[in-house]
């Protein structure tokens, strides 16, 4: 009888150990999410490209957000939505989604031809889905 009970106890102990392992490992590790890093990088790269092309300062000088956004549509992947603002210290946050993680990229511009620009370009980006 003694050995019999002992066996039962061992079985119960091993079961408890396995139960613990199951509860610890039942939730698979969440894969690393690169999406926000990628979005920020792509936003900055797109603005830098437009800057080197000479278009960004032109848009800021003419306060032409529409042209900037039409260029960005061609440069950014279709799964990214964005909103741009030309501003200094107080940047508007209108048209931003309420239930999304929004990434902000600020790009500073200095001069366009013979004009001094005292504004930055703020780009808000978020995933479409």
């Amino acid at each position: 009888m003694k050995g019999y009970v002992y066996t039962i106890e061992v079985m119960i102990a091993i079961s408890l150990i396995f139960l613990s392992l199951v509860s610890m490992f039942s939730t698979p590790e969440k894969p690393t999410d690169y999406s926000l890093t990628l979005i920020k990088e792509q936003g900055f790269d797109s603005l830098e490209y437009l800057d080197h092309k000479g278009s960004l300062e032109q848009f800021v000088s003419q306060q032409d957000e529409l042209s900037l956004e039409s260029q960005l549509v061609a440069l950014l992947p279709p799964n990214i939505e964005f909103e741009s603002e030309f501003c200094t210290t107080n940047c508007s946050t209108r048209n931003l989604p309420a239930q999304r993680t929004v990434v902000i990229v600020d790009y500073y511009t200095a001069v366009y031809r013979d004009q001094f620009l005292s504004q930055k370009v703020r780009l808000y980006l978020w995933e479409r889905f």
Partner: protein
Amino acid sequence: MKGMSQIDFAIALGAFLLVFALAVYYLTNFSVTLSDSAQDANTYTKGADLLHVADFGFTPANWTAARGVANLTRIGLRTDAYRFSVLVNNTASFVRSGPVLNLSSELVSINLSAFGFSSADINSTVIYNETNSTVPYQIIATNITFATAITAQQVQWFTIYFDDDSNFTSRSVAVSGVDNLTETLFPIHRISVMQYKKMNDLNATSYTGLRDHIGIGSDFRIRIRDLATNASALTIGNVAPRRTSVTALQRPVLYQNETAGVHGGQLIVEVW
């Protein structure tokens, strides 16, 4: 009852086997997910590294395809190029002498040495007018001269690009006209472009040799696609197989073509 004496043992054994099975199932699931995550992280890192060809030049800086991949430490296509604007203003303040007139061929002369670029590759100069068309020019020593027709009171802007470490051939043509106006030159901006010479060197290199030498451990493809025409400006590597996990990253870049023209492109990197 003889046969019923082990019932508790049987139940305990059953419970043990059930939990053991669940443990194996979840641990296996966990390990596979962990392995997949690690692999995804690995290919993403490789893709991000390859995307940095747009941030650096070759290492060593003077590497060419003729030297072979064995001497190549790092792939890079980037070079510093330069951009500045020129204002041609046909109003009274800018006329050298006489009244403001329509000018059929106003000469504009620029000396890159005066900017401090005495060793620039003058043949890499490309001049764009406001309609983004190239303007032919003449090279005399370090002077670049082009001509434009400009009416009275008109203002014209030109954008000029040049490189300092490329090796383009001369596209100088004879230009004639009269220099009636004082042009305004604006400060030079340094910009980042994918250099034509570097793209050619990479193109001339064997893909498998390159892949094995840089030790990436994965197949890849690097492309530059022209944003306006969708034409391919550069393709290195194989087409990705259809049934595998591929990490694809992209970024917009400026690149030089065979005539030193500066164009917008999409650098696309695929790793699998």
